[in-house]
């Protein structure tokens, strides 16, 4: 459960987020909006990279304000990046281990946890392959695997679907749908691919100019005329 209250982020004179308020309880929630709407800004606030000027944000009832950036992963906030952040010199398993080092393991053997995470994303056979030898899609999967270890509460994915082939896209949807069952975490999915959002997210939050313009079940939101005007464009006649 993500609770956002009156969240405002200022970049000089620009309002990155403007008194944003939202309650996001669904296991998989979409976050869409035109460029500059504040999607990445919101995720960065959740990650702790940006300090809000006003307002607060809570995950599972705990206000994130007091949690230092490097402790958020242990608390359960994880993310994948638009520019993937896989370490090239480490194997896939070591990449996952690097995060596992810093998060609760509940006494379970590390090797098993790493194997489970890699199997979940379909990289079980590539555990010992160095990061630099993994292709772009495999690296994204490594990032997702990293985010599922050690009792995560919230996994934020920043445009994971960009530039994927058809089968990779299918696989990604499967993985996203199974995340909650696999590790109990809520997913916040930012992407421009409306089909991906429709296929995976039960509810979607639409941002524009730093505020929420719509929130609700995904099909309803995508059909909302306000959203159409701001983001999707007007539906062509007869299409």
């Amino acid at each position: 459960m993500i609770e956002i209250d009156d969240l405002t982020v200022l970049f000089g004179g620009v309002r990155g987020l403007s008194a944003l308020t939202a309650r996001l309880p669904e296991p998989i929630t979409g976050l869409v909006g035109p460029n500059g709407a504040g999607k990445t800004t919101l995720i960065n606030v959740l990650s702790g990279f940006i300090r809000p000027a006003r307002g607060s944000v809570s995950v599972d009832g705990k206000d994130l304000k007091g949690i230092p950036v490097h402790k958020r992963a242990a608390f359960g906030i994880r993310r994948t990046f638009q520019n993937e952040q896989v370490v090239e010199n480490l194997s896939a398993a070591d990449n996952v281990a690097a995060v596992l080092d810093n998060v609760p393991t509940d006494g379970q053997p590390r090797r098993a946890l790493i194997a489970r995470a890699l199997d979940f994303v379909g990289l079980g056979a590539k555990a010992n392959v160095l990061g630099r030898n993994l292709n772009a899609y495999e690296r994204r999967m490594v990032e997702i695997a990293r985010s599922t270890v050690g009792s995560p509460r919230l996994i934020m994915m920043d445009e994971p679907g960009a530039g994927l082939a058809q089968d990779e896209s299918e696989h990604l949807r499967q993985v996203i749908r199974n995340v909650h069952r696999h590790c109990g975490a809520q997913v916040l999915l930012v992407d421009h691919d409306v089909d991906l959002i429709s296929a995976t997210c039960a509810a979607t939050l639409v941002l524009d100019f730093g505020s929420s313009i719509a929130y609700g079940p995904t099909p309803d939101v995508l059909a909302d005329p306000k959203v159409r005007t701001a983001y999707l464009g007007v539906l062509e006649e007869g299409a």
Partner: protein
Amino acid sequence: MPDFTPFLVSGLALAATYVLSAVGIVVLYRASGVVNFAQGAVGALAAFISWSIVERGGPESLSWLAGVTVATLVSLAYGRLIAPRLVSTDPITRAVATLSFALILLGFMGYLWGEGPRRLRLPTDTMSFELLGVRVTLTRAIAFGLGVSVTAIVMLFLAHSRMGLQMRALASNRELSAMLGVRVFRIDGWAWVISGVLAGVSGVLLADLQRLSGQTLTFAVIPAIAAAVIGRFASLPATVAGALAIGVCEALLTPVPVIGPFRSATPFIFAVGAMLWMQRKPVFVYR
């Protein structure tokens, strides 16, 4: 209680050399992004050239000019020939490159002149006047005067001249400046020239005031960098204040028992203090 006045006077002169060197470092850093660890070595070279000319019977009054000229040329050579090859690397690489330049100069000077004790004498050493009951040599007065005037000139130059404006543009955003038509290469070159002149002058003065030794003069870059740290490599007024503080403090500690011999660690203390002060509010910059 020892009389501090003579040490205050010598401290101000010493501080002035630090000011000159530190201003050179900050101007160069702001224009080109390079922290010049070789500032002291270049100054040392200027001092040795001056000394050699006098040794061979050349005119004393012009020897320093030759020294400063050589320093400027060497500095410009580095800035035009070597620095451009590193322009795409990160600041640490570029700074370490100047360190290697310092090593080369250090070896060169050690080879040609060795580390034997010598003093560089300037004609102004023998002229002096009385101030506050202390004999002030003209050299010291000139050093202090130069420190003040050069700083003022540089600050005016940066603030009001066209090239100064271009240098500030470069410091702010190099690529953007290039796109806007600033002749980056040329402005860079001038920054290295300014740095070389300041290095040469401060090297010659320091060799006169303290000792002409390759090692000592090369590592006189440390107080200059400490002052630049105090100015956060950005603010000239703060840098100058830092250099003055360091120089005066160092000199004032000379007659103090026990601590006196370790006064050369003063810049270090100042730099650490400045760094701790800079960190008092944690700042994370997200890029």
